């Protein structure tokens, strides 16, 4: 598993600020694991922006993203005992948030039809680009992508996951993940043109 969001850092290097944040997280995690809610609030304050961002980009709806963000932190609190510190807490938390958001999307889309069969079907939003409009920004264009295209685009191009990881997480073939990415990029180019 790559570090989600690793491609968002400055040249992929750990910055001094990042190291301080990680050290601070480590201390707060230790206290939170002993049941200190105040320490967990510190972890929430330090990480909520990024958790909300990934939830929003994955689901495309602000109010739903807020619910998913809350759910992610509640699950993180419940699973804190399983966090071994092998990765940074923030990395662990974002993976958990991605799983929470994908779990919700899977339920929303239903499991009856195999994901691979949904590529390009009306349920998946068809092949139309989001309607171009003056001043549309990238965030809005991403939000208007069909669900699966959006998920693959956000995980691959924004969060830095590999197709193999996306395929595993989203329950689709690697080739399908690539097809969704191709389509998402095309739709976004058209929307932003």
């Amino acid at each position, binding site marked *: 598993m790559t570090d989600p*969001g690793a491609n*968002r850092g400055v040249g992929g290097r750990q910055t001094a600020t990042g190291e301080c944040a990680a050290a601070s997280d480590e201390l707060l995690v230790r206290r939170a694991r002993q049941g200190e*809610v105040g320490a*967990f*609030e510190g972890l*929430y*304050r330090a990480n*909520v*922006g*990024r958790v*909300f*961002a990934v939830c*929003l980009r994955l689901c495309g709806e*602000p109010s739903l*993203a*807020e619910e998913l*963000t*809350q759910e992610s*932190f*509640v699950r993180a*609190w*419940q699973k804190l005992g399983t966090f071994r510190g092998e990765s940074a807490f923030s990395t662990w938390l974002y993976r958990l948030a991605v799983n929470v958001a994908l779990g919700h999307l899977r339920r929303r889309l239903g499991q009856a039809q195999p994901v691979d069969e949904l590529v390009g079907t009306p349920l998946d939003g068809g092949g139309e680009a989001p309607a171009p409009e003056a001043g549309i920004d*990238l*965030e809005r264009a991403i939000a208007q992508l069909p669900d699966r295209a959006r998920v693959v685009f956000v995980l691959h*191009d*924004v969060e830095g996951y590999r197709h193999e990881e996306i395929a595993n997480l989203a329950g689709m073939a690697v080739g399908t993940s690539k097809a969704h*990415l*191709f389509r998402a*990029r095309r739709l*976004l*180019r058209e929307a*932003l*043109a």
Partner: protein
Amino acid sequence: MSCEHVRSRLDDHLDGKLGSRESEEVRRHLAECSGCRAELAALEELRRRVEGLPVALAPSRDLWPGIAARLARPAAASAARSPWPAWSRWLGAAAAAVVCAAVITGYLLSRTESKPVQTATQAGRDVGAAFASASGEPHYRQAREQLLAALAVRRDSLSPQTLAVVSDSLRLLDDTIVRISGALEKHPGDSHLDRLLASAYRQELELLQRATRLPRES
């Protein structure tokens, strides 16, 4: 190489995932085709904009109060979902509390223990190692009687405060042992209860052993 084919390969071209021969073919096509070059430029522009996306976004409201309210709830919710029967939950909590009390008592007593006084009986030696399970109950009973007898002999040499601490802790431990034993009768073979009972035996004998070794206080 057709424009359609080249455009289908532009993503991989940008990602550096094309083989050298195909990559060279795409490059050659791009050098001659302004339409495909424009496609490539649009793709590069999209990538540039994605890299400019903020890492964090602020939700419209503070989500913490909702989270904090839910953190308070799981205790009751998880208790309701617990696979353990109700008696084992309170029993576990009670036993943990008693073990803590015994440890605290031991700590307090050790502070007054300047030099061990060898008045403990033979049964008081290394009692803590005697119980790996509750099956050591006969040994526990025998050792307990001997240690209580030794403590009675030394009763007048200990302060009322120390005696009160020892007495309260013993009462707690005895109460817990009775409850765990009752639960074991209903659920024989339960390894969790068995270990809990053995631990309570051990705590009680260690407490008695410490008490019998206290130096004279009065």
